[in-house]
Every structure is written in C-alpha cells, then in structure tokens.
C-alpha cells in the first residue's frame, strides 16, 4: 500500500510537466521511437531529453531498450493503469450502488402498483 502510494506520487509528479506529457503523447502515436526522433520535434536538446526520460522511467511510465547504438522508448501500462484507477475510484465505488438503488426503487414501485390494483 505504501509502495503503491509512492508509485502514484511518482506518476503524478512525472505528469505535472508539459514536455513530459508531450513525450508520452508522442509515444502514444508511435511507440518505440528512438530518443533522437522523440527529441527533434519537441525542440529540446539531448541532455534535457535524457533528463525528462529519466523522470518518466523512474515513474515506470516508460521503458528504454537498446538496439545496436540506438535507444528506443516504449510506454509501460501498469503505473498508468494505477493512476487511472485512482482517478476513477469514486465511479467504481458508486456505480454498482446506484444500480442496486435503481433495482430496489423499481421493485418498490411495482409492489405499490400491485397494492393499488
């Protein structure tokens, strides 16, 4: 639980920066791009890019793998799923309850309808 919370802290901290979100969005369009391909359209220098990728990697939002002399970057699903689940926690809690509320209310009104007849 504590590790989980620390993981979420890292994910939300990593997402609190426009450049890092742009990097993730670009990976969403085309996964597995090389570091230089990712850096070019964003107009940032390689050292700055590597720093941003380090933050994303620490949050486990991306993975880097070397192929020959090129480093490729891929999105990782797990921590993003945890973050989404955290943001959707209210919905997961309430949705089944509202379904039951609806079922009980409908049963009650059907009973009332019968009683009147």
């Amino acid at each position: 639980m504590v590790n989980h919370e620390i993981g979420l802290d890292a994910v939300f901290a990593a997402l609190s920066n426009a450049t890092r979100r742009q990097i993730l969005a670009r990976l969403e369009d085309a996964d597995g791009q090389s570091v230089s391909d990712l850096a070019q359209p964003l107009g940032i220098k390689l050292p700055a890019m590597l720093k941003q990728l380090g933050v994303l990697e620490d949050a486990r939002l991306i993975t880097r793998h070397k192929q020959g002399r090129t480093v490729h970057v891929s999105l990782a699903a797990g921590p993003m799923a945890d973050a989404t689940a955290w943001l959707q926690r209210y919905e997961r809690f309430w949705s089944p309850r509202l379904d039951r509320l609806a079922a009980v209310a409908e049963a009650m009104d059907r009973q009332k309808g019968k009683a009147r007849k």
Partner: protein
Amino acid sequence: MTLVRRIAASPDTVFDLLSTPEGIAQWWGPDDGPVLLAEFDARVGGRFRLRFRMRDGSEHECHGEVLELVRPTRLVTTWNWLENDGEAASRIEIALEAVGGGCEILFTHALLPDEATAKGHEKGWSGSLAKLRLAAEGRQG
C-alpha cells in the same frame, strides 16, 4: 465524477431510499456485506452516518452533513471517510427529475470547491490518462 441512471420508479420512492436510514439500508448492503449502522437526519444541517462491513471483513464508516435538501428533487451533502479523518471533505450532489413515469438520477461525487481549486489539474489529467492507458495496454497486450 457524475453518473446518470434512468429509474422506472417515482422520484419520491428514490428520494426516500436516499434520505432515510431504512431506505439506505435496503440498497447499500447486499453485495458488499451488511450495513451495521445507518443514520440520516434529513434536514439542512442534519448529519448522516453509515457504517458497513465489506466481504473481506473490513469495516468502513462514512459521514457528512446535509447542505441542501429539496424533496424529492435535490440532495447535497458533504462526504467524509472516518478512516481518512483530517482529509478535506468531498461533496455529493444528487438531482432527481421525473421523466416519463420514472425518473432520472444525476449523481455527482466531487471535491469541495476549495479542494477542487488546489487539485484542479487532476480533472484535466483524467481524460488523457485514460487514453494513454488504453494506448499503452494495447501495445503491451
């Protein structure tokens, strides 16, 4: 977070289920385990308290205060978990509208306005997060 449900029952029936201890006990429990305690003082400034046991044996209690009550169309309360005491309260807003022999319920659970300002960026994130998550899962699967 907002959920909408169309219910084939009158707003009065639904409102009673939402705002009386006996009513709440009828729908809150069945799947998750028993409701251990339900109190609801249905007037502005009144308090509610709800304690229940989950199937894993853990017990949870929530409580809050009624901020607005217009029977049978509107109910607004604060919302707190006992186990997160000290955390800022959130807000439940329920609107009921009679529609074609039944009603439509609009159920919103949101941060209180001051907390919402502090965490405003969360809202913007949730959509893009979901998208990113799908993209990432698609590629991993």
